[in-house]
């Protein structure tokens, strides 16, 4: 752990030196971190990779409970017990010229890395929403349009409504959406993408114990195979939004 940067009064950015990870990890993959050697908190905490710069990786998080609180207050220079990279990551294939990033709240976490990877190869448009101005996180993103539920920052409304408002501009380009955010946002986004016939890769979230497939704790319903669940940790966390029930 080299640095903890407070982005605003509740969002933190953790800078970690880990050349073992930075050269293999892909945007949308996650790391499972053991924040304490003690038995409480017992389980690892999953964090999506936020950005990679050389030998350093960055994780974005807010203080949700005991685990993230311990992490935020660890002394600089501590060793971190990291399991990863885990999960599949975003699939950047496809016939599109513009990558449209759609994120709500801390769902912005994976997109600085996505932006870094796609910059120069695709046009990038970012639609970033949050409940209030403090929840709209635009760190290291490009061409950002902002939305907040209470109108305290940017468009007043949710980020999918903001997409609809910009529909004409979006429909004039070949686009693919990359999304992450709360379930309600992803649900509305799925309807939007199906209606407008837009390809979308969405990063999903579920409580999990292990992060690599053995606990079976993180099921997500597939739209095609009804006889079994997919696992968020192993089959995801990124899915084509049409393939899963959100």
């Amino acid at each position, binding site marked *: 752990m080299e640095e903890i940067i407070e982005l605003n009064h509740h969002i933190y950015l953790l800078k970690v030196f880990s050349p073992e990870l930075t050269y293999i990890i892909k945007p949308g993959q996650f790391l499972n971190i*053991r924040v304490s050697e003690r*038995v*409480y*908190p*017992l*389980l*690892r905490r999953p964090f999506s990779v936020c950005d990679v710069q050389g030998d350093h990786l960055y994780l974005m998080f807010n203080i949700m409970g005991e685990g993230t609180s311990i992490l935020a207050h660890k002394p600089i220079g501590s060793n971190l017990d990291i*399991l990863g990279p885990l999960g599949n990551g975003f699939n950047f294939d496809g016939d599109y010229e513009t990558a449209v990033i759609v994120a709500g709240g801390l769902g912005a976490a994976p997109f600085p890395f996505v932006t870094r990877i796609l910059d120069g190869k695709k046009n990038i448009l970012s639609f970033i929403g949050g409940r209030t101005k403090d929840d709209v996180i635009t760190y290291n993103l490009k061409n950002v349009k902002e939305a907040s539920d209470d109108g305290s920052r940017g468009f007043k409304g949710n980020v999918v409504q903001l997409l609809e408002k910009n529909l004409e501009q979006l429909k004039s380009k070949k686009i693919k959406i990359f999304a992450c955010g709360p379930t309600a946002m992803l649900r509305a986004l799925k309807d939007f993408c199906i209606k407008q016939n837009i390809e979308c890769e969405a990063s999903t979230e*579920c*409580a*999990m*114990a*292990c992060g*690599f*497939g*053995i*606990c*079976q*704790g*993180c*099921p*997500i*319903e597939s739209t095609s195979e009804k*006889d*079994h*669940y997919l696992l968020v940790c*192993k089959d995801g966390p990124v899915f084509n939004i049409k393939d899963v029930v959100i």
Partner: protein
Amino acid sequence: MSKVDLSVKIGSLTLQNPIMLASGTVGYGNEMAEFTDLNKLGGIVTKSLSLKPRKGNPPQRIVETPAGMLNAIGLANVGVEVFLKEKIPFLKQFNVPLICNIAASTIEEYVECTKILTEEDTIKAFEINVSCPNVKEGGLSFGNDVKAVAKITERVRAVTQKPLIIKLSPNVSYIAEFAKTAKENGADAVSAINTLVGAAFNIFTRKPKIHNVTGGLSGPAIKPVAIAKVFEISRQVDIPIIGIGGIMDWRDVIEFMIAGSSAVQIGTLNFIDPSAPGKIVNQLEEHCIKNGVEKISSLIASYQL
């Protein structure tokens, strides 16, 4: 050849060391194999298998609790047929004894699963789950009923020659009674304990934290309960016991053995540190060398009261 004899016996099955991986915490081996050399272990126990595939419970299936976790997976598994076709080929490459855990809704289903699986040479023993707390039918209702445990043990015994282990529920008043019944009906060993029934609510939404409302509590929080149950069986029934419940390191393994376990299963720890089981084998050996323990089996039920 190691300087210490770490081997232990479970009925006719000899394990090279007492460290097994518990059902439901090792999948079908492939994910764990990336982190721990399965050949170093005493044995692995598969995810509970049922005759037909089971989808399991909807999310949320897991929640952390103080020094533990609740799970209600609902016995999600691929079913016997897919297991034999798709999972056994991977497991065949290891020398580690493979123990199949079976969970069923009816006595007939237990018998049918065992009949099919016993034909497969790679499978060295069976662990019968009569104690899953997270499914509506079967599961715990069997585990709470001595007569049902007797019947299941007897009927499954009749269709396999392989070592038979009955996995007991801690959610009973006298666990030794169940161990005794298992022994009388032909079981070679018992494993104790399965998870304890628990629940947790969100105080703001007033909703249960897991979809199934109740789940199985595991992790270090349950270790003292498990030790007590192992000890109770050990005092009253002459049957090998596989101790399970919140093992986090080699000291816990030694404690379980002293309390009466012939072997142990590591469960929740696999989720946190999947490389731990292999390390624990090494640490057990070091402990034995340092303390002049020539045979680890000499520790079994060595409590000094």
